[in-house]
């Protein structure tokens, strides 16, 4: 990188705001998708929006690609600087700027950790609802970029429903201050279309979030099943009966064993084939009424054990097992391929069974833990990256699972994002015209396409969009056209 540019950046950020060489760059080579790596030319650590904007202006003048990074907990390679350039880390932007209990909102710097925001809101009887499993580490800025979910998004919705305002540093260094919360957007919904854009439109530096009231009563149920089918069918029945729990999570046998052998041990029965965690929120009466209906369905679907958390401690323990599941799997294999796909909730049982078949056919070990209420599957394939043949089979299984989910009316990702990992899958789901339209939006924000290049859209330049839709997708589109 040009010495004059480095000097100018040092002048803006100070010595502590630059990571320029050697082993200190290694942590920035990838996010949680460690199999895809690339070393950045430099890492910048601004402390304020002004520092970030000044840095971005300098980088724009020099034409340097920019990759934003929260905590690096993403699982799709979104923060991997695949085309080199500079990583801008939010690690030094960790201030909670304001908690407004009356307005039920908070304003934070984008590097604030998700769980820290809820901690700051807790004294006011409020919490921040999106709760990705990585919430102890992931940042609000990263959550905005990925439109992150989590177990309780079943009731409360993904990140986009909780963002009231943003401060964005655009590719040219201009600061777009959309932090003033308004009930509806004035003009086009810039915030709504920015959330989930995976860092390809700009760098978010401040976020105004909606805070949610802590419910009067929360009840957590654990249902143990002799097989995954019963757990999946219970969830489909609850959706069909229009019941409204706040979370519905399923763990399979291998996951249960990993959790129970780890520090996250939650007391799940080790011999169970599947457990279903159900959480209910609301007034005491609402919870009581819904709980009776839920228990009836669980029994009817063959639950062999039903347990209600007796106190907050037991509830936290049950959830610690679920949220620690990915970490716990380190015990059963050196590497884990965490897939993320969505299917209509009427097709849960079939798709869960199919993912197991695909892995079995390739002699792969599968641990499944997923947000069943949203139809958001996480088949986790265990592997050893030193075994190249196994890596090949893992990638093949991952592709097959996505293809089958799409053919079933599903989608590539429910919460991890497209990033680098699913770039090739985009043309299975979208036609060229769909992708080209997205490119047009990107061009309005970042005409030089320097923000997080090589992510989300399968293009180097939008004119190179490739299209290879699945036969099923073509047929569905044709049918829709005929019906219209």
């Amino acid at each position, binding site marked *: 990188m040009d010495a004059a540019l480095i000097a100018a950046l040092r002048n803006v950020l100070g010595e502590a705001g630059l990571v320029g060489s050697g082993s200190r760059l290694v942590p920035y080579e990838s996010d949680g998708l460690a199999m895809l790596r690339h070393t950045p030319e430099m890492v910048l650590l601004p402390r304020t929006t002004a520092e970030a904007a000044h840095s971005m202006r300098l980088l724009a003048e020099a034409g340097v690609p920019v990759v934003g990074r929260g905590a690096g907990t993403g699982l799709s390679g979104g923060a991997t600087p695949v085309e080199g350039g500079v990583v801008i880390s939010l690690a030094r932007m960790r201030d909670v700027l304001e908690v407004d209990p009356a307005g039920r909102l908070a304003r934070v710097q984008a590097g604030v950790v998700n769980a820290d925001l809820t901690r700051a809101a807790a004294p006011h009887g409020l919490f921040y609802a999106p709760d990705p499993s990585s919430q102890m580490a992931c940042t609000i800025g990263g959550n905005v970029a990925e439109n992150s979910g989590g177990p309780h998004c079943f009731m409360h919705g993904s990140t986009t429903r909780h963002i009231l305002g943003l401060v964005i540093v655009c590719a040219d260094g201009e600061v777009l*201050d959309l932090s003033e919360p308004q009930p*509806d957007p004035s003009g086009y919904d810039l915030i709504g279309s920015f959330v989930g854009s995976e860092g390809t439109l700009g760098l978010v530096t401040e976020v105004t979030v909606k805070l949610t009231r802590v419910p009067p009563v929360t009840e957590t149920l654990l249902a143990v099943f002799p097989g995954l089918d019963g757990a999946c069918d219970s969830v489909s029945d609850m*959706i069909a009966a229009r019941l409204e729990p706040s979370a519905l999570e399923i763990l399979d046998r291998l996951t249960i064993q990993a959790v129970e052998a780890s520090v996250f041990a939650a007391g799940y029965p080790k011999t169970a084939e599947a457990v279903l965690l159900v959480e209910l929120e609301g007034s005491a009466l609402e919870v009581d009424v819904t709980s009776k209906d839920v228990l009836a369905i669980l029994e009817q679907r063959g639950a062999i054990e039903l347990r209600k958390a007796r106190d907050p401690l037991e509830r936290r323990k049950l959830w610690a097992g679920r949220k620690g599941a990915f970490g716990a799997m380190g015990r059963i294999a050196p590497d884990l391929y965490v897939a993320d796909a969505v299917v209509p*909730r009427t097709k849960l049982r079939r798709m869960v069974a199919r993912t197991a078949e695909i892995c079995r056919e390739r002699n792969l070990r599968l641990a499944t833990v997923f947000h069943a209420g949203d139809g958001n599957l996480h088949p986790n394939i265990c592997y050893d990256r030193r075994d190249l043949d196994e890596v090949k089979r893992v990638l093949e299984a991952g592709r097959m699972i996505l293809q089958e989910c799409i053919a079933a009316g599903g989608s590539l990702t429910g919460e991890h994002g497209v990033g680098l990992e699913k770039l090739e899958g*985009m043309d299975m789901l979208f036609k060229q015209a769909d992708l080209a339209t997205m490119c047009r939006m990107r061009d309005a924000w970042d005409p030089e396409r320097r923000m997080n290049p090589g992510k989300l859209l399968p293009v180097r330049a939008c004119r190179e969009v490739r299209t290879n839709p699945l036969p099923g997708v073509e047929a569905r589109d044709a049918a829709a056209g005929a019906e219209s």
Partner: protein
Amino acid sequence: MDLHAQLTQVVGPGELDMWDGDAGGNLPRVAPNNIDEAVECLRLAHSNGLAVIPEGLGSRRTWTHQPKRADFVLSTRNMRGVLSYEPGDGTLSALAGTTCAELEQCVALGGHRLTPDLPRPQAGTIGGAVASGHSGFDRLRVGPLRHHILGVRALLGDGTLAKSGGQLVKNVTGYDMHRLYCGSFGSLCLLVEINLRLFPAPEEWAAVEFHAESRAQAAQAALDLEEMRLPLDAVLIQSPTDTSVRWTVLAFLSGRRAVIDVECDRVHSSLSDSNVKLEMQRGTEARSKREQCRDLEWDEQAGWAHLRLGVHPTGLPALLEQLDTCFAGSVAQFSIQPLIAEVQVRFEEPLTDTQAVAVHDRLLASGLNFHWRAAPDSLRSQGDIFGSAPTGIALMQRLQSTLDPQSVFARGRYLTGL
């Protein structure tokens, strides 16, 4: 061949009429029967440099400015029907010209209710609702409409058909273009297909009504109701009328029957303690009262002008203070939804041009976030019924230029020339 003949060639003679609208008098209005015909209409406009006004049933025509120039109106009214309703998944896909009433009836069969719960659902299309970002009477419970659009298919100005999102309740694949289109008032695309998330139909409804001596007392009562954590769909405060000098507070509840039974008892006890006389309705009566209040929001047939003021809840007390100043000299009635910070202002007699401009100038000076609905023509031709230019207007203009570079969708109807 003239435009009329060219459009007739695309859709047939029965689907073309004249529209007594904006921009210098009558315009041809074409109603394609399917997406292919709509594509042809847009290609015709694109290749001939024509400007198009997208429309559903035209019920929100006065919610936008008069365009700078328009050559024909493109209506989705013939593109109607439910493409798929999945009761087991709680999702719906429909063509944009389907009325909200038709969708309500369809999903009721599977035990769902439609969001948005809009006034006069038989008079507006779902495409029009999404294009105008019109959230419904159930907003307090479920949030704004834009949160429940799962995906769309839209036609760009050059006739390109592009989809965004899908029909899944959770999905982060690709940009959420549908968020950009929602509330863009047809200035970016013509929506042709909408996918929505649905909510459970309640087992029981309740309506609670009582009076307060002042606006402040009524607002406090609304906050007290919220503190009780009731299953509220809406809380409405109505200003005094010719027949009453007091403010009216209405609360609408819905949910499981056992829950509503108990919650109604709680409301009754709580308000009885304060010596407030209340009326309570249940079931069909409550639902009918709710619909009556909901439909008041959009009663343009009465010849009133409507104005929607939106502020964040924290700004509501200040807004209430400003109301009297902003609307001095006009006979205005306020419907306030304090818990979602919305104020509808209705003028009981048509405003004169002078009155309308005076109110408008005071609103602009106040810095409030507002939007005139059913605005008088004197304001619609002026170009700022959406209030002052917001932050990011330059980016919005770039977005419009990249998505519709030839200005096929008539410019100037939305805010600041968009």
